[in-house]
């Protein structure tokens, strides 16, 4: 293998983008799921003033399930379609992991921004601290993609992989839920900023840590 790791990462990213464009079903599933969730929240909170804590919790549930549905499938489909062996020959494990993660980050970022717009358009929630919200959302996207990618990679060669990937991901997401809700809640007007900013930075740190250490875990299981 003569290619550099960056070339491999970009090749995997391009491949993932092509797969997503060719098979719009999976992207549409995430979009539909996110849209319907926000719509359901807006219907449930019609004519009511959403408090920051509740609004952050509801928005985070929508983000969480969008990630759990969308991200692990990048690894699961390789086994389902029988393309994993070819991928093993063509790229190094860390390149595969980072390539898939990059595509996941792009997809989740678009989903999160779209959800945010939809959420503020359809509900009575008001944004009090855009900077904190942006940091919290960025951290959430990174941490969600990192954790769900690891769980997808771990469950990819298991028997009941689709169900297992979600079941394995949820415990890994517990600390992210704490940090995520803490940061978004304050940005929506409830709670103290001195507690929320460390939570948002913590979330970002968790996301970066899981994306950096992910390839090591992935390479330990991918070659077997």
């Amino acid at each position, binding site marked *: 293998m003569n290619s550099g790791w960056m070339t491999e990462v970009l090749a995997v990213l391009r491949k993932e983008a092509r797969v997503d464009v060719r098979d719009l079903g999976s992207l549409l599933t995430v979009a539909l799921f996110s849209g319907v969730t926000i719509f359901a929240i807006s219907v449930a909170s019609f004519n009511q003033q959403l408090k920051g804590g509740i609004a952050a919790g509801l928005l985070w549930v929508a983000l969480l399930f969008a990630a759990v549905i969308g991200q692990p499938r990048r690894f699961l489909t390789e086994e389902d379609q029988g393309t994993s062996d070819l991928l093993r020959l063509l790229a190094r494990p860390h390149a595969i992991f980072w390539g898939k993660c990059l595509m996941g980050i792009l997809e989740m970022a678009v989903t999160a921004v779209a959800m945010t717009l939809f959420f503020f358009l359809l509900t009575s929630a008001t944004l009090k601290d855009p900077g904190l919200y942006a940091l919290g959302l960025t951290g959430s996207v990174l941490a969600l993609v990192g954790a769900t990618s690891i769980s997808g990679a771990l*469950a990819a060669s*298991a028997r009941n992989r689709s169900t297992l990937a979600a079941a394995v991901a949820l*415990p890994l997401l517990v*600390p992210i839920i704490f940090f995520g809700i803490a940061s978004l809640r304050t940005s929506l007007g409830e709670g103290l900023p001195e507690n929320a900013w460390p939570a948002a930075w913590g979330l970002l740190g968790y996301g970066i840590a899981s994306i950096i250490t992910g390839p090591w875990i992935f390479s330990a299981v991918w070659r077997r």
Partner: protein
Amino acid sequence: MRALKSTKWMAILVGIFMPIATVATFMAPPAAKFQQPDLARMVFWHLPCALVSSVFLFLAPYFAFRFLRTTDIKWDIRAVAAMELGTLLGILTLLTGMLFAKTQWGAWWNWDPRQSSYLMVMLFAAGYFALRSAFSDNEKRAANSGGYLMAALLPFFFLIFVYPRLPQVVSLHPNVIKDGSFDATYKGVFYMMLVLIGVVAAWLYQLRVRAGTLEWDFENQNAELDNRHRSATPRVVRTISLPDQGGTTS
């Protein structure tokens, strides 16, 4: 033979000291700072179980790390044993904690940060065992579950050490060692229970590792015998014709 002897001795020692320690937990004078001092003795079981469980839950990712580095199956056997012991003691922690909560705080479950975080740690353990059960190949099972433990290390640390101690988190749990809830006798009995539960857990862990190693050796021997048997009678595949279907198959 030596292993059997040591097991027998451990059983005798535990058989002698466990009843003595149990009696001591009832003989210690009630700790005055608790709401129901007489019913607070559950803490003699609850706290050591929590501490020893945490030790095993952190040993498991270490063993998993060693397995992923060396691919020596003995580390996987140790990781499983540590997770099993950690989970067992974690469940005991939750159950004794619920009894304590009912007597001291009035409800079985109070959504106390320490209660909730320990419950979540148990969810991790459930995820670990679910993942293990989904692989039939030993090596894959060991590698993937080891990877899961490595991924769970940071959340473990957060849930056990960070989250319950965050300044904005209010816990019902007293800090019994630091705030003087325990007098000298209470502390003495508590440390005795801690040592005893620690020794019993270490003994059970050793037995589990031994059982796991024997199971592994047995499986490997069977596989070897199976392979030898197969090589003695090689399979021959011949093409045959099925007249009623008119086709050819093998």
